[in-house]
């Protein structure tokens, strides 16, 4: 396939993925918005008022970037894991396997579909947050790049989960037992500098800490982590996860007998 043909194939997957989550928008776009709105009300408004300020920002302003990032992470992940597993379950993955598409086109198409949903939900949540907090963007380029990189990373994670998954139960194990705890402990609701030294050290191995802080740096201009380190970690994870996903597809793990 030449580059034009590869681009046509890539855009076909992306369009299909976007069409899928837009077709079921009541399940894909609305629930995360409601969940995050509840976080704004309960943690931001009701509890946040009693907490006061973190640095120069109100508690509500402080948690907004983390909550936006949380919705981006969970939605980019769940979009790819459910979509790719569904193609396995219905065997429509065979449509792709019989075609001449290179593996990187398949992975890229699914990942961009996940990124699109992550950004769509992130945008909805950002709009909602305007009802609760004054939001200004300190650095638009860091903000956008950190969202795109994070959504890419978790879309790859969703892809890998879907390849290994043998049942619908398997696609909820990682989000429930890995993703949610890491997100809650990733500095969404607090600054990791508030933790005892030991737990601050433990937090350094949580990749979500780097993404939440990188994004918070873009919005508020403050971060517990050096922004260069945050970028380095996210890009490193993306490279590793992509290599893993490519290997799985090349050898047909969980896909070909």
């Amino acid at each position, binding site marked *: *396939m*030449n580059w*034009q*043909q*590869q681009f*046509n*194939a890539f*855009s*076909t*997957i992306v*369009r*299909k993925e976007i*069409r899928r989550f837009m*077709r079921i928008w009541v399940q894909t776009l609305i629930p995360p918005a409601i969940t995050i709105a509840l976080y704004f009300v309960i943690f931001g408004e009701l509890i946040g008022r009693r907490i006061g300020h973190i640095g120069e920002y109100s508690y509500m302003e402080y948690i907004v970037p983390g909550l936006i990032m949380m919705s981006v992470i969970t939605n980019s992940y769940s979009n790819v894991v459910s979509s790719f597993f*569904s*193609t396995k379950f*219905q*065997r*429509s993955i*065979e*449509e*792709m*396997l*019989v*075609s*001449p*598409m*290179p593996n990187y086109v398949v992975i890229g198409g699914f990942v961009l579909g996940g990124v699109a949903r992550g950004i769509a939900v992130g945008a909805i949540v950002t709009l909602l947050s305007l009802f609760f907090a004054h939001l200004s963007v300190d650095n638009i380029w860091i903000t956008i790049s950190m969202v795109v990189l994070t959504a890419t990373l978790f879309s790859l994670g969703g892809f890998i989960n879907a390849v290994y998954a043998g049942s619908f139960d398997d696609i909820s194990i990682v989000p429930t037992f890995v993703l949610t705890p890491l997100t809650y402990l990733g500095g969404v609701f607090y600054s990791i500098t508030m933790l005892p030294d030991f737990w601050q050290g433990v937090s350094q191995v949580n990749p979500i800490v780097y993404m939440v802080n990188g994004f918070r740096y873009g919005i508020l201009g403050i971060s517990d982590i050096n922004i260069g380190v945050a970028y380095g970690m996210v890009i490193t994870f993306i490279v590793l996860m992509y290599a893993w996903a490519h290997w799985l597809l090349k*050898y*047909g793990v969980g896909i*070909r*007998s």
Partner: protein
Amino acid sequence: MTTALSVHNLKKTYSSGFEALKGISFEVKSGDFMALLGPNGAGKSTTIGIISSLVNKTSGTISIYGEDIDRNFAAAKMNIGVVPQEFNFNQFEKVGDIVCTQAGYYGIDNQTAALRAEKYLKLLDLWDKRDERSRMLSGGMKRRLMIARALVHEPRLLILDEPTAGVDIELRRSMWTFLKELNQQGTTIILTTHYLEEAEQLCRSIAIIDHGEIIEQSSMKTFLSKLDRETFILDLGKDITTVPELDGVRSQLLDAHTLEVEVSKQAPLNAIFAKLSALDIPVTSMRNKANRLEELFVSLVERKR
């Protein structure tokens, strides 16, 4: 003549240890219409799965129109279209979208994909269903949808894995006509089927696979010429209790008014009718017990067991 498909020493052993293919080799010439036959579990679907990249091979080589499937994956895959045995499309997608999406996977731009989808959906009488979700289609329509999808990138080699399974006779015959025309227009076709009448009607060559080995490969004409005996069922006009003596003909009564006779292909049938007339046994109708290919196939497979 160009070789459309070349399979050489293809082996497949599943992780369970089951040896599905024991080093099969065969070739299909460009423009041919070949039947790949074999009993259930013989290795037909594994062979097709490997050719279409749905199953990993253990060893062996495959080339499609001269392009090695390992060394020049994309070029090889561009030439092949596959209609699988089981429905494998998204049940929630619209019919038109399924065909256009498949075109996209082959690098075809949107405009061309839409034109091709229209062409093949019309040819397969599905154009009126283009905006319906695929799960709403009948079984026969779903089979035709898979054919349209496999043709949308206009492959030179089309492989159909039991395309008429569970399809009513009227639809089956219309699919035969469609496939014959497609073959006449130059598409090489490989067909697996359990309907041997279908294979005999459509195909010009044949390969039989059993227990992971090719046990026969020849032209259909050559293969059928091996049949030296045929079995006929005669419906009798009156009930009889004993099997009539027919010289050189093996016969048996299936019931009081149905006689089965097995005759040499070279022997004239007139003698049988003359003898039965002499015995005052009228014959009201006559039919083949099984079609010629079926008789040969069964005898060949049974001989190997």
